[in-house]
């Protein structure tokens, strides 16, 4: 070693974070370049959960693919079901019975709440707020119980069908749902009291991981992350699908686009979901829950793109039909995948603790990132 470099010097280290790491929300891997505690650069590495769902779709009939959509964003199976079946219905021009439409809304919004509850819980946990992890999970449990009543399973529900839903919900579903709706406002207050109002929590999230509207749009970031930046864009209002245009609700937005806003926007969205469900429960008509369809579905030749407001952002399904019983091609636009793209930009210059909290605030689910 030459004499001049024998003095003390510092250098950047490369730190491999993941795919096995407590707070990468699954098998995300980031290659961090660190200057001590500070993050100089991040390189996203994904694909550890790749199952080739889009290719699998080409070998399954249209109905057979529904259970696979559960495994996309495994925290919002109902929403994935909804996006897919509506894409097929659009392709075939199927009319869905009224009652099924309402049931779909109720399930989708319950699922949105359940997904946001996991977000709140895991965000708290990534900041080491262990107690903040348990409270949302207590409430999510009740939503999953409702799903179990309706579909028989809690996580991978496969409840929606092309042309409606699998079955009408059992009678005990309604009192349980109403009890839950009555309790939820108090639960949200608890989250605010335990997490949102906490001084340390605010110090660690305000002004961290800022994503402004222009950058968000340039990267294609959608959903609560975009709304936290200040743009009130929600597909449920902007391009209503299903029967969303009948419901009265607001689009919560943030101002700064920091981690704190992303957190608060999601808490507010849960409150709005609650409003939608309350209206749906009031207005739901009696009647059949599935349209009369042939046993074997043969959509006409053509292609269709359908997108819905998933819990993480715009969830899109692009279907190409060659007239056979199986899709010629299916492409899925996973919001987590797109949102993760902006992540390296958001964490540059922060500490490794900011990196973890920012990753939590983007709310990725690796099942959807890798598909």
């Amino acid at each position, binding site marked *: 070693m030459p004499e001049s470099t024998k003095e003390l010097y510092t250098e950047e280290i490369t730190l491999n974070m993941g795919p096995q790491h407590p707070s990468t929300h699954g098998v995300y891997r980031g290659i961090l370049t660190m200057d001590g505690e500070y993050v100089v650069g991040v390189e996203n590495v994904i694909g550890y959960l790749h199952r080739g769902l889009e290719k699998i779709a080409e070998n399954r009939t249209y109905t057979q693919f529904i259970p696979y959509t559960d495994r996309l964003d495994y925290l919002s199976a109902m929403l994935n079901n909804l996006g897919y079946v509506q894409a097929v219905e659009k392709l075939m021009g199927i009319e869905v019975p009224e009652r099924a439409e309402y049931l779909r809304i109720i399930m989708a919004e319950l699922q949105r709440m359940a997904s946001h509850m996991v977000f709140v819980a895991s965000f*708290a946990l990534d900041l080491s707020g262990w107690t903040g992890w*348990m409270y949302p999970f207590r409430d999510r449990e009740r939503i999953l119980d409702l799903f179990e009543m309706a579909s028989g399973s809690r996580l991978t529900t496969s409840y929606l069908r092309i042309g409606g839903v699998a079955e009408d919900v059992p009678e005990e579903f309604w009192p349980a749902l109403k009890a839950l709706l009555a309790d939820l406002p108090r639960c949200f207050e608890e989250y605010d009291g335990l997490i949102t109002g906490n001084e340390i929590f605010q110090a*660690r999230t305000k002004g961290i991981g800022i994503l402004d509207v222009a950058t968000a749009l340039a990267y294609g970031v959608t959903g609560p992350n975009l709304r936290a930046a200040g743009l009130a864009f929600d597909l449920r209002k902007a391009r209503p699908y299903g029967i969303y245009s009948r419901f009265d609700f607001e689009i919560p937005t943030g101002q700064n686009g920091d981690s704190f806003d992303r957190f608060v926007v999601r808490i507010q969205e849960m409150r709005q979901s609650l409003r939608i469900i309350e209206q749906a429960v009031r207005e739901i008509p009696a009647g059949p829950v599935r349209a009369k369809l042939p046993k074997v579905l043969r959509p006409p030749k053509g292609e269709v793109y359908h997108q819905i407001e998933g819990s993480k952002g715009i969830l899109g399904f692009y279907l190409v039909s060659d007239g056979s019983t199986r899709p010629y091609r299916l492409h899925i636009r996973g919001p987590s995948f797109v949102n993760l793209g902006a992540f390296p930009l958001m964490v540059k210059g922060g500490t490794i603790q900011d990196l*973890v909290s920012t990753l939590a605030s983007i709310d990725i689910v690796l099942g959807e990132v890798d598909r």
Partner: protein
Amino acid sequence: MASVETVFLSGDQWLKNWLFSWGMPESWVFLCTVVVYAVAVLLFVFANVIFLVYLERKVAGYMQQRLGPNRVGPGGIFQCVADALKLLGKEDIIPASADRGLFRLASLLIFIPATMLFVVIPFGREMIVADLNVGLLYFIAVGSTATIAVLMGGWSANNKYSLLGSMRAVAQMISYEIPLAFSLLGVIMLAGSLRMSEIVAAQKDLWFVVLQPVAFITYFIAATAELNRGPFDLPEGEQEIIAGPFVEYSGMRYALFFLAEYANLVSVSALAVTLFFGGWQGPWLPSWLWFVIKVYFMIFLFMWVKWTFPRIRVDHLMGLAWKFLLPVSLVNVFVTGTAIKLFQAMGW
């Protein structure tokens, strides 16, 4: 009641008499009793640590609307035994690239200061292993050597996460030692002594927590940081650096770090009780029972804080120590000194 109060002291007396009856010289008897004291302190520490691991899980469970351990034994009381047995059966993995000597030494070294601290703690009336005239100084000095073991463990593991963790540990523990020591100055000025027994005696009429509330809060915060407990558990930082210095440890070596953390929790709580809550003093109950009750109250406070707050960020941590706690404790020392002089001048 008197017999319960003096059960340990009379046991000690009986032991000495018994040894003398064998015709031992006095220095030998002294040596033997010291060994017995050491074993007694170790037993106290281990019993508490085992119970604390259980207690922490129960407290955390009830704070989080869970039940906590409830399968092994009545109320899950034997869960810790099961865990200890499991850890004993685990393979002791030493990474290939680790500095084997240091790596092994660190896990043993962490436990030595943790137990040594109990030498100067007055467990009850006249129940103190060594009533040093610099008892408090000894406590702070020995307590701060735990940093070396943590740094050793983190450095020798040759893992980037543990390196980050041990860097944090050193920065944090050295920074927080200063407000910790300064917060104790007020108590020392009031008691006029560093000797633990005299500090306890000085609180005969009024606990120092009343006279020194600022010092107590400063001590509480700084002690939480010294213990590496939440919200100051940055060196461990499970969500970012997994377990920091302990990431490569497994089996019983990991358990030693884990147990040392709880032993430190007991000693820091015991010091808080001695300095701020009148030590073993209290009506009706035996003095050593009062001591245990007060210590567990303090421990519960530490647990309450840990299970409520999220973790603080590393730069905020340093800011809190140097920009807030240190000035506050210095002002406290100044105000205490002025008040003492004023009271003396007015002849109260």
